[in-house]
Structure formats: structure tokens, C-alpha cells
């Protein structure tokens, strides 16, 4: 056939031509992503359409039963609502603090700059296990924070920060903070300090020059920081299980229980896909709000 002949000719040209090296270089990576990311996700979608079973992880079939079960359940509605609340709270706090810290690192130089950047990179490369359990002796009812507050007379009796909502939020902010700082810092580091100087020479106060010159410059970084913090906080697992009480159950914890304890694969798959869809919608919304266009996530 002429069609297939010309296709082979085209392929031959490709392989002989300049691009041939590139094809062989990129093929292993493309194959890996296809085999272990794209196809597994298609299987996940298929799994969510099976029926839950009494014995074994699932009953082969073709039903929306798992989705119906998720929508009908008050428990799941609460889990999802709490996950989003935690996501919003942790994101707002960490992006706000990260903007400040990234600016401090940008302005610092010499040893001070290295120290500030080190304090960001180290937690980034530290396991979530360490980042969460180490807060327990600090936030417990008889922990360090309570001792300090009682000693200062700020509170009259100990407060249970952890396990509880305060501990969960602190833990989650601590987890996403380094990512937020780096997203903003990498944008700030390309900013020309002269622009800020110019604004100040024209009479802008320092807080005003920060708000009107630095923040707009950092906006792409702030957008990335927001999306990354939000995506990670909605899917929070370690912080709420280590620092929360039963009331701080997230969808990620429920998935873990569905998959590893209850062996209900279809419901676990359906819950994950619904959550991903919701996260995607919210993230695109945030990006559009902050940057005026969709895209720009690629530079993380």
C-alpha cells in the first residue's frame, strides 16, 4: 500500500535524520511514563467502575455503584469538605509566610543567605515522618508550647494543640512551606532590585514598595506556590494522622484505610478520581485568578 510505504519512508527519514538520536534518547522515558503512569491511571478509572465485593478487593463489572456510594455517604462528604478546608487554611498560611521568607532570602547575602536557603532545602529533603512526629512533644497538652504559654500567663490551663486541628494545620504548613518558599524565591531571584530602589526614590515607603513592586513581580511564583501547597494539602495524609484527632480525617487517610484495611478497591478508586477532579478544577481556578491565564505550572 502506498500509505504504509510512505509511512515507512517517513520513519526511515526520521531515524536517519537529525532527530534520530533524540527519538532513541526520549523513548525510554516516554515508555516508562506510559507503562507506569498513563496506563496505571486508565486501569484506575476502570477499577472505579467495578463493584465492591464482600470477599476480595473487587467484583468485576461495569457499574457506577462506587461513585454512587461516595456521593450518598455523609461520611465521605465530611471527609472531602474537611480536606478542602485544610487545603485552603494550610495554603493561605504557608503562601503568606513563604512570601515573607522568600523575600528575606532574596534580600540577604553571604552566609545569611546560605543559612536561610539551607533551612528551606533541608526540610524539603526530610521525610514526612520526621516533619510530623517531631511536633508532637512540642504541641502536646503537657508539651513545650503549653509550658511556655502557661509560664508567660497567656493561658490559664493547658490547651490540646495536638492531637487536634491546630496541630494538623501547623504540621501541614510545615510540610508545604519549603515548596512555597522555593516557588516564590526562584521568581524573585530574577527580579532586578533597581526597580524597587526606583520606587523608593520616588517616595514610596518600604511596605508600599513591597506591595506594589515586589508582590506583582513575584505573582507567577505565588501562583505556583498556591497550586503546589493546595494540591499537597488537600491530599494531606501524614500531618492529620500524626497530629490530628479522629475529627481530622482526610480523604487520603480514608483511601489508605479503604485500600490497605478494608480492601475495597472500587470505592478507593472512585474517591481518588472524584478528589482529583475537584482539585484540578480548584487549581485551574486559582491559576486563572492569580495569573490571568492558564499555564505556567511547567516551571516548578
Amino acid at each position: 500500500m502506498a500509505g504504509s510505504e510512505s509511512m515507512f519512508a517517513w520513519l526511515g527519514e526520521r531515524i536517519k535524520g537529525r532527530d534520530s538520536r533524540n527519538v532513541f534518547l526520549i523513548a525510554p522515558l516516554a515508555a516508562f511514563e506510559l507503562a507506569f503512569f498513563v496506563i496505571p491511571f486508565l486501569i484506575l478509572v476502570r477499577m472505579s467502575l467495578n463493584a465492591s465485593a464482600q470477599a476480595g478487593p473487587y467484583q468485576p463489572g461495569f457499574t457506577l455503584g462506587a461513585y454512587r456510594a461516595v456521593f450518598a455517604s455523609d461520611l465521605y462528604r465530611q471527609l472531602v469538605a474537611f480536606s478542602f478546608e485544610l487545603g485552603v487554611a494550610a495554603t493561605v498560611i504557608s503562601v503568606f509566610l513563604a512570601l515573607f521568607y522568600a523575600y528575606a532570602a532574596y534580600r540577604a547575602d553571604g552566609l545569611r543567605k546560605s543559612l536561610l536557603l539551607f533551612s528551606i532545602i533541608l526540610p524539603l529533603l526530610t521525610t514526612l515522618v520526621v516533619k510530623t512526629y517531631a511536633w508532637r512533644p512540642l504541641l502536646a497538652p503537657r508539651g513545650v508550647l503549653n509550658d511556655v504559654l502557661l509560664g508567660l500567663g497567656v493561658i490559664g490551663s493547658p490547651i490540646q494543640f495536638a492531637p487536634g486541628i491546630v496541630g494538623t494545620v501547623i504540621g501541614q504548613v510545615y510540610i508545604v512551606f519549603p515548596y512555597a518558599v522555593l516557588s516564590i524565591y526562584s521568581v524573585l531571584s530574577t527580579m532586578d532590585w533597581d526597580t524597587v530602589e526606583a520606587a523608593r526614590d520616588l517616595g514610596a515607603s518600604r511596605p508600599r514598595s513591597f506591595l506594589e513592586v515586589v508582590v506583582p513581580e513575584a505573582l507567577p511564583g505565588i501562583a505556583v506556590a498556591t497550586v503546589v501547597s493546595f494540591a499537597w494539602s488537600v491530599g494531606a495524609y501524614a500531618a492529620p494522622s500524626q497530629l490530628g484527632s479522629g475529627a481530622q480525617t482526610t480523604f487520603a487517610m480514608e483511601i489508605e484505610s479503604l485500600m490497605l484495611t478494608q480492601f475495597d478497591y472500587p470505592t478507593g478508586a472512585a474517591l481518588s478520581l472524584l478528589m482529583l477532579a475537584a482539585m484540578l478544577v480548584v487549581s485551574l481556578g486559582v491559576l486563572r485568578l492569580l495569573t490571568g491565564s492558564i499555564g505556567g505550572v511547567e516551571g516548578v
Partner: protein
Amino acid sequence: MSEVELSRERAEDVLFRAGYWLLFALIMLPIVVVFVTSFQRGQYLTFPPHGFSLQWYRQFFASAEWLSAVRDSVVIGVGASVLSTVLGVMGSLAVQRSDSTLARVLPPIILLPLLLPPVVIGLTLLIYFNRIGFTNTYLNIIVAHTLWATPLVFFVMQSVFARFDWDLRDAGMDLGARPSRVFYHVVLPNVRGGVLISAVVAFIVSLQEFIMAMFLKSYGVQTVPVLAWTSLQSSLTPLVSVVSTFLVAVSIIGVLVSAALMNMEWLAERL
């Protein structure tokens, strides 16, 4: 500038500095807690501790369970590091000099696993590996960690290759050297630091990850953070601080090595 403005500026300076040093202290606090409590005496983790001893270090080195977890972690970490460095460096090199559809579609796909909750990736791979009957725990976890480490390698190498002078490579080609020789003798010496940092970061990311590793573990094979997590479910034991101290130490060494190769700023802008 008036007297009032000057004193206001000074107050702002003090506030600004106090603010970021306070944050700095809060960031380092958990790491201090981990380090100090690893030397504590007594069964229950307390901070500040009531006495010091090396009992938890002794217990760690006497425990077959922990030592086998260390071995599993190292095997998986090295595997994930090698695999993601090879895939990431090759892919990055290809994308750098190509504008094919694949070269444009691939980067966002590679990045996606970093933005998904690890619980979701863990569950997806668990279902997938069960379906296709691929049940070698080592390989399963190596694959999962490679999904995370590859984008880091890929984007670090993108910025390394962007600085490389491609005319040098073309010169090598024009002189008739085979592409593999050009890569080895011309490209590699110029990007060696970047490749090494990528491999170190990939190893550390794998070593520290525990959620995907928890989904994919088996009775015989589990990594150090997974075992630490499981022991924390039963009690807050200082033994976990010993393990954590080692994990943090590996990261500190990794960061210092990378910073020595490039510098801290370079690292911060690329991770």
C-alpha cells in the same frame, strides 16, 4: 530624611529581621527535637529530655528489623536514583534539542506525579501491579520513587543543558566523532556536576518517601520511613528519633555536597 522616618526605618528593620529569624528557628525546631531526643533516656519520647544516654542507638544497631529496613531503603534508593538519572538525563538531552510533538507533550506529563497526592499514586500503582502480577516489592517501590525523582532530574538537567555551549558538541560531530563519544568526551565533563546533584537528590527523595512505599511494601520488604511510621502508630519511641537523625544526616550531607558542587543559590533556584 527626617528623624522620624529614620527611626521608623530602623524599627521596620528590626521587625523584619526578628520575623525571619523567628521563622528560621521554627523551621529548625523539629530537627533539633529529633536530634536531642535520640540521645534521651527513658521509654517515652520527651522534649526537653530528662537525661541522656546512648541506649536507643544501641537498640537500633541490635535490631535485625531496623537493619534490614536500612538495607531495603538503600537498595531502593540506589535503584530509583540510577533509573531516574538515566531516564531524566537522556530525556532532558532529547527535549533540549528537539521540537517534536513528543518533546513538547512529555515535560508536563513527567511533572504531573509531583503534583498528585502520593496516596493516589500509591493506590494507582498498587492496583496496577496487582492486575499485571508484577509483585517484586523492590522493583515496585523503585518504579514509584522514579516517578517522583525523574521530574526533579529532568528539570535540573534542563537548566544545566541550557547553559552548555552546543557549538562544542557540533564541533565534535563535525570532526567525525560518533555521538556517544561526543557525549562522553565533550558534553559529560561540562555537565558532570549537574548529573551528580540529580543523582544525589533522586537518592534522597527515594530514601525519605514513605507514603507510596507504605502502599507497596510487603512482609519481607519495607523501607526505613515506613517502619518508623508503623512504630509510631504503637508508641512515641525515641528509637524513631535515632532513625530520623540518620535520615536527616544523609540529607544534610547531600545538601552540602550539592552546595559544594554548585552553590546553595543555584540549588534553591532549581529544586
